[in-house]
Structure formats: structure tokens, C-alpha cells
């Protein structure tokens, strides 16, 4: 009996191997292989467009960025991936630290993307920008009472502030930016003050925070702008109604600017299709793709020739934090530790 079973097992294994071999026997064609943690349908549409225009085939593996970094590291010089795309600059910085990426050197990308949204050594470039802002209940909160992230720690906001859990990268990079701007002590004080003012223990995602604001559980919530875009354009009427009762306030406009994070891309160190990968980078930072990013996902375009979507424009002009984005990556672990120390769950 064992031998028969063994036969079945080996037959299955052989069959699987044959299928995989069959898949590999495709003729030489130009390809670019991407590891990405951006999961939007918009991205796939853009890759399809790119293939249509250039004939270059785009292959994609989507997973969480840290797992992708670990996979890249394990594969080492044998990796098939050419391009790494992440939705957080910290992960690009980390990839640089782990020596997994290399400079792309493209004049086109350099002219498409302003300097502060690229790594100084050309190791990575931003593709889109997201702002983390204060949203408030239009019926209860006078926006003139809002000013800065720091002001949310004042006693007047006690029991009124909503934010998601600190396990989320958007909160980690927000705190990392404060470490970069104001130092560790001040950042810790801020986190402590915010925890003290929270309306409830952090739970749910960014959309849930805004719903809780409208439901009266708190008055203000710290969220990314594009989630408001998604609420306002939801196919669920109630969500649209919720979105309409939310105001957007860009904090720290009078001081050191609103916090942004980027999603961005980098060439992998051992990728073999550099030319195609750079071509894709140039395409993604070009005006056509940037327009699509801006309209479909309510993110800010990085290409200054492209205007943000009408919704983003309606929020007003945005002054952003003036720090090197890579610092968000550098201070990520410090931020996580501060969150733990002050008990921001």
C-alpha cells in the first residue's frame, strides 16, 4: 500500500513540476518583474497600459512589503524581481539599508519628480503622495479652533480625539516625522498627550474613525486624505453622507507643515531587466500615469505638471513637512517603541 501511495505522490509531484516547466518555456520577450505592496486595481490598469504602449510584459507579485523585503533578501542575487514598489517610504529606506536596491539614474524620472520626493542617491522615487490630516465633525467643530497636531494634546480635546491603532504604518511614520522634526522627547510627549485625549481605545481603520466622528464618539480624527475621497465616492449612500459631514483640516500650515508619506519604487539590486524597469518608472512618473493615480485613488500626484483631483484641490493648498523622507524610515523603530511606552495600542 505504501508503495502505491508513494507512486501517487511522486506522480503528483512530477505533474506539478511539468506544469511549472511548461510555464517557463516561453520565448524571450522584454519583461519587468515587480514586487509590490500596492494592491489597487488602478496599478494593474497602469501596467496593462504600459504593456500596450511598449510591448514590455509586466509580471507582478503582491504581498506585504516587509515580507517582500525578506523574500528579496533570501533570493539574493538569484532574484527575478526587477522593481520594488511599496506604499511607505520607510520600507524603501529599509530596502536601502538591507542593500537590496540600486540607483536608477534616469533624467526623465528626475525631471518628472521633484527632488524632495526622491532619494538623494537616486535609490528610490516617489510615485504618489498621501497626506495624514485632521478631519473634524462639520456640525460641531469650528476649524478655527484647529491648528496643529500638537494642539490636539491640549486639555480642550480631552476625550475627543480618534485614531487607529499604532500597528499601522501611517501612524508610525507620522510619529517618526515628529521625531525627525522635534526630537524624541517632544515626540513622546505628543504621543502621550494624544493617548490621554483619545475618545476610545484605538480600533478599526481610517474609515471607521471618520464614521465615529460623525456618530459623535469623538470630534476629530487623524486619517489619510484619500480615505475621505473613498467615502465621498463610495457606492454606499450612507458612506457618502458620512463623508459629507466631515471637514478636512491641514495641520501645521503655519508651522512646520503637514505630514506626508509616499508610495514609491526602486530598482532591485540584482534585477536583470534594468532597462525595462527604468522605462516603467519613467512611465509611472509621467503625466498620463500620474493623472490616473490622482483621479482613481485620490492620492497627490508627484509630477508637478499634473494637477491633483478636484476633490484634493477643494481641500486647499498643502504645505508639507520639510524633512528628508528617508528619516521616516530611519525613525520607524523608535516610533514603534514610543507607542509601546505610552500605551498607544
Amino acid at each position: 500500500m505504501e508503495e502505491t501511495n508513494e507512486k501517487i505522490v511522486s506522480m503528483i509531484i512530477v505533474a506539478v513540476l511539468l506544469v511549472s516547466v511548461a510555464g517557463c518555456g516561453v520565448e524571450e520577450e522584454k519583461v519587468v518583474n515587480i514586487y509590490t505592496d500596492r494592491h489597487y486595481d488602478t496599478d494593474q490598469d497602469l501596467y496593462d497600459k504600459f504593456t500596450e504602449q511598449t510591448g514590455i510584459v509586466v509580471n507582478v507579485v503582491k504581498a506585504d512589503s516587509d515580507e517582500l523585503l525578506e523574500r528579496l533578501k533570501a533570493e539574493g542575487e538569484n532574484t527575478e524581481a526587477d522593481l520594488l514598489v511599496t506604499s511607505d517610504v520607510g520600507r524603501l529606506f529599509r530596502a536601502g539599508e538591507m542593500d537590496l536596491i540600486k540607483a536608477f539614474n534616469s533624467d526623465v524620472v528626475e525631471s518628472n519628480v521633484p527632488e524632495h520626493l526622491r532619494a538623494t542617491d537616486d535609490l528610490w522615487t516617489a510615485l504618489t503622495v498621501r497626506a495624514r490630516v485632521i478631519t473634524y465633525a462639520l456640525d460641531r467643530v469650528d476649524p478655527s479652533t484647529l491648528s496643529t497636531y500638537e494642539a490636539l494634546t491640549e486639555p480642550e480635546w480631552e476625550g475627543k480625539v480618534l485614531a487607529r491603532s499604532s500597528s499601522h504604518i501611517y501612524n508610525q511614520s507620522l510619529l517618526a516625522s515628529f521625531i525627525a522634526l522635534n526630537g524624541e522627547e517632544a515626540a513622546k510627549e505628543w504621543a502621550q498627550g494624544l493617548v490621554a485625549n483619545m475618545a476610545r481605545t484605538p480600533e478599526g481603520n481610517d474609515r471607521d474613525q471618520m464614521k465615529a466622528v460623525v456618530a459623535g464618539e469623538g470630534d476629530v480624527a487623524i486619517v489619510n486624505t484619500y480615505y475621505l475621497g473613498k467615502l465621498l465616492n463610495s457606492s454606499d449612500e450612507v458612506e457618502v453622507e458620512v463623508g459629507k459631514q466631515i471637514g478636512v483640516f491641514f495641520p501645521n500650515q503655519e508651522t512646520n507643515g503637514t505630514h506626508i508619506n509616499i508610495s514609491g519604487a526602486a530598482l532591485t539590486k540584482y534585477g536583470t531587466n534594468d532597462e525595462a524597469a527604468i522605462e516603467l518608472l519613467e512611465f509611472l512618473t509621467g503625466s498620463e500615469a500620474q493623472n490616473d493615480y490622482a483621479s482613481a485613488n485620490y492620492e497627490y500626484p508627484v509630477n508637478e505638471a499634473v494637477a491633483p483631483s478636484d476633490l484634493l484641490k477643494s481641500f486647499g493648498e498643502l504645505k508639507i513637512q520639510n524633512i528628508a523622507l528617508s528619516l521616516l524610515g530611519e525613525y520607524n523603530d523608535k516610533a514603534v517603541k514610543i507607542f509601546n511606552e505610552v500605551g498607544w495600542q
Partner: protein
Amino acid sequence: MFARFKERGLSPLFVIVTLIIVAIVLPSVFIFIRLFHPVTESWLHIKEYVLADYIHNSLVLVAGVSVITGILGTFFAWSLSKYQWRFGLLLESLLFLPMAIPPYIAGYVYGGIFTPFGTLDRILNQVGKEPIRVDILSKGGAIFVFSLFLTPDVFLVTKVFFEKLPKNIEESSRLLGRNQSATFFRVILPMSRGALVGGIVLVMLEVLNDYGLVRYFGIPTFSTAIYQTWFGMSDVDGAVRLAASLMSIVIIILLMEQFFRGRGRLSQARAISDGGIKKRASKVYKVVFYVLTFVYLSLALILPITQLVWWSSIAKQTNVMRRFGSILFNTISVGVIVTILVVVCGILIGNLNRLNPSILSKIYARIVILGYSVPASIIAIGVLVTFISVDRSLSGLYGILDLKNLFLTSSKFILIFALTIRFMAIGFNSIESGFSKMGKKHYEASKLLGRDEWYTFRYVDFPILKPAIISAAIFAFVDVLKELPLTLILRPFNFDTLATRVFTYAGDEMIHEASVYSLIIIGVSIVALILLSFIRKGTRI
């Protein structure tokens, strides 16, 4: 080749099972090694500030969910296998189904019902009532959701056991003067401890390893500590170290359980049961059973499916169904292959344990749980590192055959391997509970009559084992359908499954679109259940 082993007293079965076990253990070795790496700074930080809280949360969740699923699962299994019910078969299939809804999706569903502007608010609003606040995103809420959707795990394992329980045990107990409930609690329950523990262990591990639901609910647990160390502090070594300590604790507990229960086993009991004659339930029992079943199925099936259907109906249709054919094909083909592998390996290991029981074979039987004892992303790293080193050592061969450098690592084979070792624990648990009452009598009779191993297995053991095999297959298949972390990280380029599509949308707060694929997963599970129940028919002895 096997003849040589035989001369040395090693049966081919032993050799094959040992190879399977080595394959299971290998990726874990890469994890274990890190236990001995120097302690990192982030570990000290985690220990100082959060570990105690996180472990406390984990324990609360695990304890709550174990108790509830244990009671509910055993109650349903016992009732359905020993008593007559109207629509019994239908109810039985329906009680499996909540398994097809991954807990983290269920988390979104219940969040979507109870959070502000959720379904409950809307309904109350329609009838002009004030909104009611139920804090579902809490520990209590998490225990509630986990319990609803993990009860089938216990139900499935204990049911296989109860069905094969010889009737004369019950009769003897009744003849000796114990009433029905005393018989159940004093006789049946102690005997079925193995199956019950087996089912509950699966539930515990599932709760321990969950990251999706607890993250959305904002409840940091032990797996939060693992991911925080890895993602937050980019300390992979520290994360793996934490996982390795979790793995060690799980293994020690399981081995202890195995040795302590040793003598309580029914190894030589009669394999053939009571011919499936079921009793009539008393009136009170009937009311309790129907009410409980109705409430359970409403909460674990009707409510979430209704919510998902409604969400799907307002999903933006653009692109959601793109490449659906290949997604479905990927999911089902991987599911079928992994299910077959899990079942075959499970039978081999179980058979070894029955025919040549030894300390080693007992350890083997517990080691299968390795792949299920830590969060899947950690196992994924182990598998990845293992495969890459195999690929590197075969690179000469690949050169000759004109294959890619990381031929195995970049193929579907790595995914199938990883899923198989991951779900071996689950499949084996059912198969083991089928084997546990089988004994050797029939096997030996058949051998004495001159039948060979294959004939004996096919015509003697297999029919007795069939229900256990079928529930193992259901487990493995449905779990592969909804599996996420391994598929995400180990998949080849452009390889999507139903579950990865759910993740793609849910991860970006697009729950309407995610619902479409959640429903398809449930649909495919229903089809699989129907197919398997056809196979099952006619095999009741």
C-alpha cells in the same frame, strides 16, 4: 530498495513517514536555530513594555474561544451523530459552512454591522429608533466572532469520533444505572478527550496565530508582538525568535498531552459501530437543539452571508472580476493537490502510529503540528530559506537542464509544499481521530487471510476510515481556499487566488469588493461539501 530497509528492521512505511516528517521539520529548523541567536534590543523592549499585556490578551482570547467552541462543537457533534433530527443531513452540512468564512472577514462583517452607520444603525433608523452602541471591536467581540467561525473545527473532529463510538459502551453505562447525561459526562466525554483536545488545539492555534482580526479590532496579542518586532522594528531575527518560543511551548504542551492521555485510549475497541441507528431525542432536548442550531446558524451563516451579499451588490463592478477564470483555476487546482497530499501523508503517519507504535511514532504524530504552531508568515520564511538552499545546491543540475536559477523557489511547487506542511496538522487531526478507535484486529485478520497491504487498506481499513478522510479533506480544502499569508509571500508572478483577491480589497478598506470574493469562497466551499457528502453516502457501516 525497501528490501534492504526491511532487513534492518525498518519498514518502508517507517521510512516514508520519516521522510515526510523531515520535510515538515526542515523549514522549522531554520526558525528554531534563531532561538539561540543573541537576544536583540527590540526583544528587551517588547518584554519590558508590552509582552505581558499581549500574552494576557492572547490567553483571554484563547481561553474564551476554546470553551465556547468546545461546548458548541461537542454539542452539535454529539446530537447529530446520536439522535434523529428532521433535516439532520442538511443541518450537518450547514454546520460545517461557517468554516469557509475567514475570521478576519467575519471581523469586518461584524464590524460593519455594529459600528456607527453600520447595518444595525440603519435598520434602527428605518424603524425610527435611536442607535444602540454595541462595542463589537473589543475582546468580548473578538471571542464572539472567533467562536462563531471556529466551532466547525471542533464539530468536525469530534463528530468523526462520536460516529464510530461503539454503542455497547453507552448501553453498558445505562444498564449500570447511569442516566443519559451522566453517561455522556462520565463515560463518553472522558473517552473522547483525544478528539476534543485535537479539535480545540486547532482552534487555539488559529486564535493564537491570527493577525488580521485582532489588528482590525485593535487588540494586541502575541502575534502582534511578532509582527511588531518584524515590521515595526525591522528585526526579523527577533520576530522569528518570538515565534520559535511560541512553537516550543505549543510542542511541549502537545507532547505532554499525548503522553498523559496514553492509557485513556480506546485502542482495541470495536471498530464497527452501531450501524448508525439513531435515537429519538426527548422534547426538551429537541427544543434546546433546534433553538441553539437556529441561533448559531443565523449568527455564523445567515447574517454574515446576507451582509456580504448586500455589500457585493454595491461593489463597483469595474475590474473586480478581472482574470476570474485563472483565479478560480489557481485556487481549485492548488486546493485539490494540497488536499490530496495532506490526506495521503495523514494516512501514512496515522497508519504507522497504529501498526508500529513507538515513542518515535508518537512524536511524529505531534510534530505534524509544527507547521501550524506559528504565524504563517514565519513559516513562509522557513520554507523560503529551505527552498533557496535546495535550489542553490541543485544549481549545477539546473545549468545542464537549462532551467532558471531558483527553479523550485519560483514555481508553484514551493507554495504547494508550504500549504501541505501548514495544513498537515489540520488534516491529520481528523484522520488520527478516525484511526484512534480502529485497532489492528481487522488489519491482522486480513493479513492472516493472505491479503497484501494494499488490498487490506483498500477493502478493510479504508471503508472504516472514510468518514475521517472526508472530514480531513473538507478541512484541508476549505483552509487552502481561504489561506492567505503563505500564498501571498510564496506565490509565483501573476498568481492570484480567491483569498488573495479578498486581501487585495480588504487591505485597502474596500470591503464591498472584498465581499464578492468572500462569497465566491463560500460558494466553492459549498460545492466541495456537496461533492464530498456524495462520496460519503453509502459508506456508513
